[in-house]
């Protein structure tokens, strides 16, 4: 099939930039190891306590290294279970020092939820039967909102918690 000369130039330029673009994505993904959250472990959604990370006493923020934290969260309609404080009250705010390495782990006990610390790249889907994880370094101090960004029912827009990133 004959293709017009200008169209050839246009296509070579376009396809060339496309290839360059995909190569950049691939370098990010396979050389730098930056993939979107894709954790493969499964769990029984009716019996999440079976899994060490989601036992009641392990929920919420835990320090695991000098500057390393794990945050285990149970997502369900319509709140994030971040464990209990000393008085036995449900925790709704977690505080993380700036620059710390944080591993978020969450799963759902009912329907599909979202897990987004708004304004950051901590953004993943939470599905019953699957564990979602994401490791990050919180770079900017501030008060962030952790919220559900996948529709989960009538109280969906109330499903939120607070994440404070502070200068130690």
């Amino acid at each position, binding site marked *: *099939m004959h293709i017009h000369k200008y169209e050839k130039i246009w296509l070579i330029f376009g396809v060339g930039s496309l290839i360059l673009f995909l190569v950049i994505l691939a370098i990010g993904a396979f050389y730098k190891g930056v993939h*979107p959250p894709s954790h493969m472990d499964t769990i029984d959604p009716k019996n999440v306590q079976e899994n060490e990370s989601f036992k009641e006493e392990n929920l919420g923020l835990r320090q695991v290294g000098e500057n390393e934290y794990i945050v285990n969260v149970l997502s369900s309609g319509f709140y994030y279970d971040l464990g209990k404080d000393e008085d036995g009250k449900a925790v709704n705010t977690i505080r993380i020092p700036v620059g710390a390495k944080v591993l978020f782990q969450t799963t759902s006990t009912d329907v599909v939820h979202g897990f987004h610390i708004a304004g950051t790249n901590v953004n993943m889907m939470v599905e019953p039967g699957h564990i979602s994880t994401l490791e990050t370094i919180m770079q900017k101090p501030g008060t962030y909102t952790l919220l*559900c960004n*996948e529709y989960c029912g009538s109280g*969906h827009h109330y499903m939120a918690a607070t994440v404070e990133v502070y200068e130690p």
Partner: protein
Amino acid sequence: MMEKHLPIPQKEARLVMAHMYVAFISLLVGGLMGLLQTFVRSGSFDLPFGIGYYQILTAHGVILALVLTTFFIIGFQFALMSKTVGLSDKQRLSAWIGFWTMLIGTLLTASTILTGKANVLYTFYAPLKAFPTFYIGLALVVVGSWIACFTNFRQLAVWKKSHKGEKSPLLAFMVVINMLLWFIATLGVAATVLIQFIPWSLGMVDTINVLVSRTLFWYFGHPLVYFWLLPAYMAWYAIIPKIIGGKIFSDALARLSFVLFLMFSIPVGFHHQLTEPGIDPLWKFIQVVLTFMVIIPSLLTAFSMFATFEMAGRSKGYTSLFGWIKALPWKDVRFFAPVVGMLAFIPAGTGGIINASHQMNQVIHNTIWVTGHFHLTVGTTVILTFFGISYWLIPSLTGRKLTKKINTLGIIQTIVWSAGMFIMSGSMHIAGLLGAPRRSAYSTYTGAEQVDTWIGYQLAQAIGGTILFIGIVLMVYIFFYMVFGAPKGKASFPIAEVSEDAEPTPQYLENWKLWIGITIALILFAYTIPFIDIIQHSPPGSEGFENLIR
């Protein structure tokens, strides 16, 4: 060679018009829901009569994304097929059966939404569970659309038999590609609805495999958007050249780009599931690469459009570098509306590239940015082209004229729509980048300052939404005026001819077996391994949660 075009007899016009009535009534009802959503989200309005936000959002999504689009497209495509290859009495009967099946399905689903037992949004993600008639209605819509598919396939096959050795008319070729795409894509959603959702919602099985249902849904969900876009491209490629007094730049390239859209719009659903657990990131990446292949036919299309415009302008004697732009009929709404739609595709497509970029998706996933994005793609590019089509299609079917007054009103409508969308979609994009979630009623969340920064943009969305709704009222008025009010006369059904300079179309472009074979091979390549993986690593299934949607 000149193609012969057939007249559209009354009986066929009635068939097409039946689809159009449903489409434009949907536009009004769905648009009203959209307006109410922006009001609720502004924080200063509560819905009356115990109506829920997610109830109207479900209605908005279903009515506009599924009903309006499907009815308009199928109606329009029947008109194109009648015009180019003809419609026999038997085929017309089956077309009507398809129409009624879809309509009954629509009414069943809509009435379930009205009762508040299906507040699951138009994507109906399991394990939120709606009342069974919601899913049964949707299944009927799909089955009805399949009847239309096979009617269209039959139309072309019959024509081919009596035109041995001739290449099929361009528009008929395009319609058949789009219906093939639709048929192959809807197999996924039909599978999940028929095998998973309906038995589960009826209580015949206890649990549902969530990730399998989502994967089947998105196997359908992305080609769905190309099913909307391709009819717009039909108008761009084969009708607008006529309206501007030009010719089709290249028949072969037009067909090639449609074939490429067929091949590369299906094996890509994972780009909607990028942040989901349980799917191997390698396969996500592979589908991301396949996603970007549609850039090639998009580049072909962009080139063809501008080449057509320039050639038409130059043939009218404009010789300077950009002088030909002046030669275009900007005051003809049949040109103006779709061209504004085309321009909207520049930011819309750019946004799409961001969305599908493996890693960058995480920045915007499920934020209101995404809503801003598809109000540009389907809500502007596609819809404005559909409006542009209506200005000649409706009068030519009803035996009336597009009056000067309606032409002017149409131009005003286009401007109103673009202004409203610029404000609404623009503020959605910005708020999304700031983290504001989509599919959410008004909320201040935990009261953090951060959330305050979103509220102003939500107010702006209400302003944009109000302007848009004025646009909808205008358009619905124009539609009914063209049906009942406009003076009797003859409106033309513009179909362009191919430029004399264009190269002949190679035979292999009509090798259906080849294109369908490659399409299926690509789907099998992209899905077989990850799908088996998903099934083999399935967690225990989920029971339904009706309680959460009350």
